[in-house]
């Protein structure tokens, strides 16, 4: 475990401790109806779509870009899959069509950014706005309810007592980690993020890398969309994945990936997403009134960002006269809070 994951881990532990203080049985996990049951399982299960979207976002941000359209892709993917199933298409076909379209949307983003040269925030903003309209077009503005046990498995089912969505996330995480950390892809992504032009001159196909990461981000969002709609057996074009892009960016930042690009941490992102989901569950469990929920979340996030900033830590600890905590070896603040 590297040192930079220490602080997010600490925050996660503190949040869990707060829950245990209010409800001592919070950490208990039991077997109910043949599957795991408990608050921790809920955090993983409801956090699964966010972790996926955040993984895609991590690689996008590592190239110095950003993808605002993932929330819309979530909505489109779920809507398309549910529409197909409601028209008696097979689940496999529905999933394949939804993921293929997600991938195509990601390639479109990548084309606008790498091919046409539009700034990432603008290029993906187009799909963010238009995509939600597309999702509403697919669902005809209605909520499509489906009744398919095999589709239900993706986001709401269990395999060997473990939530299927969690297994799916683990698989995607393993593949991503292998591709980026065991093969050279991760280094190529970081070099494009560090300096796209220099990497191109050094012989890296920058454009190809950029298109790849946006396609990957959209694919992750597509899978997340399937999970979200499958979990409630219905597709809601208006609300599915609404603002998930912001949560995903936050998760990436909490995990220590710099928004400036050039480096990334997959483990940090997973931790960041788990912190966000734990925070949400905490709000429900300890009964924070809805009117103050946003303030509560903002305070926790601000605290997370501050505690991760070496500059902030150095200042606070110096004031307390503890020179041991002085060093702050990193050149860059881990989190531009």
């Amino acid at each position, binding site marked *: 475990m590297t040192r930079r994951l220490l602080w997010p881990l600490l925050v996660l532990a503190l949040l869990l401790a707060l829950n245990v203080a209010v*409800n001592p*049985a*919070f950490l208990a996990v039991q077997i*109910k*109806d043949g599957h795991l*049951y*408990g*608050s921790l399982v*809920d955090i993983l299960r*409801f956090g699964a779509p966010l972790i996926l979207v955040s993984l895609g976002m991590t690689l996008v941000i590592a190239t110095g870009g950003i993808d605002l359209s993932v929330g819309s892709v979530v909505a489109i993917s779920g809507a398309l899959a549910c529409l197909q199933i409601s028209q008696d298409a097979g689940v496999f076909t529905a999933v394949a069509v939804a993921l293929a379209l997600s991938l195509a949307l990601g390639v479109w983003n990548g084309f606008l950014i790498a091919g046409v040269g539009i700034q990432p925030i603008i290029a993906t903003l187009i799909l963010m706005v238009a995509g939600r309209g597309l999702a*509403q077009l697919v669902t*005809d*503005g*209605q*909520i499509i*309810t489906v009744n398919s046990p095999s589709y239900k498995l993706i986001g*709401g089912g269990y395999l060997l007592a473990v939530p299927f969505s969690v297994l799916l996330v683990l698989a995607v995480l393993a593949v991503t980690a292998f591709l980026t950390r065991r093969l050279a892809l991760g280094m190529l992504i970081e070099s494009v993020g560090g300096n796209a032009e220099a990497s191109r001159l050094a012989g890296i196909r920058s454009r190809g890398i950029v298109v790849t990461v946006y396609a990957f981000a959209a694919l992750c969002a597509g899978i997340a969309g399937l999970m*979200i709609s499958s*979990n*409630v*057996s*219905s597709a*809601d074009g*208006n*609300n*599915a994945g609404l603002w998930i892009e912001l949560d995903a960016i936050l998760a990436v930042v909490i995990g220590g990936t710099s928004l400036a690009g050039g480096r990334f941490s997959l483990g940090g992102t997973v931790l960041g997403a788990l912190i966000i989901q734990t925070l*949400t*569950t905490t*709000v*429900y*469990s*300890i*009964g924070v*009134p*809805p*009117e103050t*929920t946003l303030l509560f979340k903002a305070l926790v996030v601000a605290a997370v960002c501050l505690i991760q900033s070496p500059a902030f830590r150095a200042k606070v600890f110096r004031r307390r006269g503890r020179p041991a905590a002085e060093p702050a070896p990193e050149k860059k603040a881990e989190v531009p809070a």
Partner: protein
Amino acid sequence: MLVLAGVTAMAMASCGGGGGGGTAAGDDKITMGFSQVGAESGWRTANTKSVQESAKAAGIELKFSDAQQKQENQIKAIRSFIQQRVDVIAFSPVVESGWDTVLKEAKNAKIPVILTDRAVDSPDTSLYKTFLGSDFVEEGRKAGKWLVEEFKDATGTVNIVELQGTTGSAPANDRKAGFAEVIQADPKFKVIASQTGDFTRAKGKEVMEAFLKAHPDIDVLYAHNDDMALGAIEAIEGAGKTPGKDIKIVSVDAVKDGMQALADGKINFIVECSPLLGPQLMDLAKKVVKGEQVPARVVTEETTFTQEQAKQALPSRQY
């Protein structure tokens, strides 16, 4: 431009009695300009359909405009209705404030205005003739009354969890207030947890999962709309409990999926929040055009559904 000219010509023709836009009856046909919020939900789509169909049935010519949830579109639509000299303007305001100027223009043009579904916060009530829509507080009261009746023989504490609508929205505030007003009369009713589920199934499920773990002894779920109740039902089933039996569920709206769950015994009681206000709107429109007095507040005709009633109503449910 051509279309506008055509429309104006038609409006003039009908004002002149008979001719181009003439009706079978040959008398002055009422023209109504209606500006809808958008098409953001099944409820809203049913609302639009109801207005369009009842206008046809009532022989009223409807100029329909979809604001796509933007106030500026709605103001534009109302101005164009004024220019077209429609006989009456009806609209569902996207937001509560900022309507004074455009409504004054309508008033100066002597075109009566009817608000539907949502209110405006202008202190000058002379700007519109009437407000036709659901009474969200009353909906909350109806849910509360059912609960009091259902548990009248219960001796112990009745633990209630509440799934609120979007924080700060009028239906969420009012449905919470009306419900609280009724149940507070008896101290055995206790709301042990209340969180927002944003009116969506996904959030309803997520919040209910957390409720079920934090509070093992839930007797009743009160959901501010059917969608959240439908999400919560999945959470309850996942926790190995039977929705409708182990945990009684009361919700508001009566959309088709909700009615299906009610008929299946998974929900116990639904308070209707009907989008089908078209017929009432057309009656009001005819009255205000004739210059008759109408009440400043008209509540949509709504009912409540038990499981038995849901089974009967389900086949003919429109939305």
